[in-house]
């Protein structure tokens, strides 16, 4: 038999590492993405004849807690039924021992891809829509802990989805009752807390809050507010906070102030909810004062003039014409 080349050995090894879907209703189509603890595969659901995404663990060590954490992620997603959170269809263990869950396959772009050449108002409205599912999750006691542009998908119909809840956990402030009566998987959340209570730093540099970066296990939902501020900064400057900005010349002082408030090192100095932050964004979009920016008299006048530009022009034209009439009448 002909010896196997390094290329063939690598191919065979990769083939053997593919999820073994024997006995399931799924069939692998192709690899989509690699994450911190597993890979996402595009698969076909042979029963319903539709494409789905399978998140499968790469490695399984019996004691490392990863299978449990993946299952918790699936349960958290299943408990958070919101148009901005990708729905989970199924979860379990494959024939090769790897934990997996099946979710809706989102065809679209990441936030970074989507916002290229988009207007500022479009970007700000996107941020409002990112904050909606986040606010929903926070209201149910969950925090994401790994918000970043790569984890935001814009679907084919313009839907905004917050992805990858692999680091999500229950807030240290405890669960709040679900407003719409959605069942919150209590056992899952308790386990989730335990898994991540080792003091290890989880998250992505540039987007995680200072308290999370210090390995503080008692972080609350305001760690996500910091990440939301970092995402806003990314949308405005083209880079993560701390990295050299690509472009900040067009960032107005109120918007900069919104970012700075969300990115405050002290959680108490930040917006206390995603909704509070998006309220400021909405005020900015409407030309109204924002809570994060105490404006001066001239700035206030300029903003009011800019906000009511049409009315101001009409009044100015009217006054000018009145003046002309008066002057002509005196002659």
């Amino acid at each position, binding site marked *: *038999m002909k*010896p*196997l*080349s*390094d*290329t*063939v*050995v690598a*191919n*065979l*090894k990769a*083939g*053997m*590492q*593919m999820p*073994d879907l*024997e006995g399931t209703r799924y*069939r692998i189509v192709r690899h989509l993405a690699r994450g911190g603890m597993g890979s996402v595969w595009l698969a076909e659901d042979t029963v319903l004849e539709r494409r789905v995404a399978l998140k499968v663990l*790469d*490695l*399984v*060590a*019996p004691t490392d807690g990863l299978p449990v954490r993946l299952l918790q992620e699936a349960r958290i997603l299943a408990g958070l039924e919101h148009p901005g959170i990708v729905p989970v269809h199924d979860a379990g263990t494959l024939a*090769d*021992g*790897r934990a997996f869950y099946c979710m809706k396959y989102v065809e679209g772009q990441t936030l970074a891809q989507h916002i290229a050449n988009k207007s500022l108002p479009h970007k700000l409205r996107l941020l409002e829509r990112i904050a909606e599912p986040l606010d929903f999750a926070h209201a149910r006691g969950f925090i994401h802990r790994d918000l970043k542009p790569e984890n935001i998908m814009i679907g084919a119909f313009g839907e905004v989805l917050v992805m990858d809840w692999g680091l999500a956990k229950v807030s240290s402030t405890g669960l709040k009752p679900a407003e719409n009566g959605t069942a919150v998987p209590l056992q899952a959340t308790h386990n989730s807390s335990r898994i991540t209570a080792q003091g290890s730093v989880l998250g992505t540099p540039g987007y995680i809050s200072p308290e999370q970066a210090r390995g503080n296990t008692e972080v609350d939902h305001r760690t996500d507010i910091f990440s939301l501020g970092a995402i806003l900064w990314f949308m405005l400057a083209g880079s993560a906070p701390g990295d050299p900005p690509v472009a900040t010349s067009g960032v107005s002082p109120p918007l900069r102030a919104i970012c700075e408030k969300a990115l405050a090192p002290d959680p108490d100095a930040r917006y206390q909810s995603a909704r509070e932050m998006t309220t400021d964004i909405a005020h900015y979009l409407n030309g109204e004062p924002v809570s994060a920016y105490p404006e001066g008299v001239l700035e206030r006048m300029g903003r009011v003039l800019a906000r009511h530009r049409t009315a101001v022009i009409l009044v100015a034209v009217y006054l000018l014409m009145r003046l002309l009439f008066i002057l002509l009448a005196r002659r």
Partner: protein
Amino acid sequence: MAAQSGDPGARSRAFEVIAAAYWKPIYKYVRMKWNMPTEDAADFTQDFFTRLLEKEFLDSYDSGKGRLRTFLRICADRFFMKQARDSHRLKRGGKSGALAVNFEEAEQELATVPRSESPEDCFDKEWVRSLFMLGLQQLRASCESGGKMVHLELFERYDLDEADPKPSYAQLATEFGLAVTDVTNYLAFARREFRRCVLDQLREMTASEDEFRREAQTLLGVEIR
């Protein structure tokens, strides 16, 4: 481990599997690590596996202390040191070896190993390559006896061929006179069988269930149940 067994038949069978998987790694390792001349390395490899067959090395192997793979590499190092100390070499051709293997082929392959690769990395890579070769031999035998030759041919055409770009499943379907879904299913079957065969071989050459799982996890990145 069967190679440590008192049953001569079981020991012989286990030895064959170990020798088939490890002779190339050992040969290439000593060539690289000790810069041993070609014929001396071939003699060394023959002698090493002769001692292995005589249980001289394997008797002291304890799977609780490490992997067989690492143990054999360390044994090769110690055996080399011992030979160097005793200034004792087997006379070339003076003793029939335990292996019927092709050292020329190993030498040709060795010429393609990057200079930057360490002997230890080469040893591990060769072990994987040998294991896959044994897996393929078993897969071939299994397909032949099970009437699955089309499955095997598809696997060889798609997974073992270095063609770049690879043929599409539609092209393979036309070539083999099959439906595209058949190509998908046949390839999935062959890959699953190949995986099973490789794991069978791995199980043969590991001393305990724990070692088997650890080696499988290293090799495949997954836990085996």
